[in-house]
């Protein structure tokens, strides 16, 4: 009976363990691109190794059922991560308080998704799905919100799912490459970049944070960790409200204005 539980699928968890150990044994790989160093981290390989196992046909004990188990395990392993990050933040509480207003307000920058991506989506000829796609950097709460507001058969829902799936697959890779470049080129300070990587996805946040730390060895890693993780918690706590009251209504306005303009 215990084998029916999510934690009881020991074969699957053993596969995960082997993939994690292999990923850590390989270790970080640094690739210099021009004047900037891009660092690939074990977190990327562990994802790719498990993906490969999933894709290999003969391995039958890692398939759809395990994806369900995986998403339950993911939620609880994120809990572990948040405990670790909470402790780091508590230890750096002085820096957190002195950065307080900036730390809180920059989360409103999440509306940036809309301002940057929606006009481009509409210029590319997308319809209503663009509103769902660009209303937030969509993670689970946003998928639930859009499905509530427009229904699971709507174009908007299709849009939010597109963003969700692309984010799941490419988000971590994207975040481990782009923020360190911004820091290396001096566009953002390491502290600002750390806050900005915390946008509601724990895996994207840690990938971005690790990259920022690599790119700014002089900055205090505990402070960067505190900024990123607190920003991430604020983002995921407000994302539904931000969508409901600001980005979806604003998206509708931009959508109407641009469709009329044509």
């Amino acid at each position, binding site marked *: 009976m215990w084998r029916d539980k*999510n934690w009881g699928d020991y074969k699957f968890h053993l596969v*995960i363990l082997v993939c*994690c*150990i292999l*990923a*850590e044994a390989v*270790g970080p790989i640094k690739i210099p691109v021009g004047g900037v160093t891009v660092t690939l*981290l074990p*977190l990327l390989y*562990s*994802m*790719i190794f*498990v*993906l490969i196992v999933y*894709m290999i046909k003969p391995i039958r004990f890692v398939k759809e059922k395990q*994806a369900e188990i*995986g998403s339950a395990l*993911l939620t*609880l*392993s994120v*809990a*572990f*991560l948040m*405990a670790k990050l*909470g*402790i780091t*933040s*508590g*230890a750096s*509480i002085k820096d957190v308080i002195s950065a307080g207003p*900036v730390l809180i*307000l*920059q989360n409103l*920058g*999440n*509306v940036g998704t809309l*301002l*940057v*991506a929606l006009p*481009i*989506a509409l210029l*590319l000829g997308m319809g209503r799905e663009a509103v769902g*796609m*660009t209303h937030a950097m*969509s993670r689970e*709460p946003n998928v639930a919100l859009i499905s509530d507001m427009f229904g699971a058969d709507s174009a908007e829902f299709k849009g939010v799912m597109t*963003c969700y*799936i692309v984010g*799941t697959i490419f988000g971590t890779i*994207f975040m481990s490459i782009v923020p360190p470049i*911004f820091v290396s080129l001096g566009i*953002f300070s390491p502290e*600002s*970049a750390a*806050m*900005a990587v915390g*946008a509601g996805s724990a*895996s994207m946040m840690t990938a971005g944070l*690790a990259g920022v730390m690599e790119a700014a060895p002089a900055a205090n890693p505990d402070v960067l960790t505190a900024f990123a993780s*607190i920003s991430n918690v604020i983002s995921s706590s407000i994302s539904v409200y931000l969508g409901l009251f600001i980005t979806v209504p604003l998206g509708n306005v931009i959508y109407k204005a641009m469709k009329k303009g044509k």
Partner: protein
Amino acid sequence: MDKENRVSFGSEFFDWVMTFIIVAILSVACNMVGYGGMLLESIPGMLIFAAISLAGLTVKHFIPGNLPAVAYIALIGMLVAMPFSPISGFVIYWANKVALMAVVTPILAYAGVIVGRDWREFVKIGWKGILVSLLVILGTFFVSGGMAEIMGRIFGM
């Protein structure tokens, strides 16, 4: 009704504990292989993370509202590590024995199966969908970071 609730919470709590044992094994393995951690030195940190996570999940279970469980967990973690907490020294010392990335690598491993499941859907997404989705992520990062830069100067950070 009340009794039924309690029973279901009990079994849910048991599932959390069993799951955290698995997560802890994975994290300790990563900590040893990737970051030079010692087996015995890694375990107190795991117990601390598990205790904080269980406390946060329990709070979420009993308090109504939309706040995600991770918010409670991060908050409890912060509180126990703040200077006024009598156990802050102990908590910070053992938490630091576990590398941040040792906790992250297993998370992404589980994400791997979800990516596998979504792959077929992903292949159907055209280049426009991929481009716009990446712009969404870039836009979030760029505008948040820009605001932090500007406000950092205003507030003199």
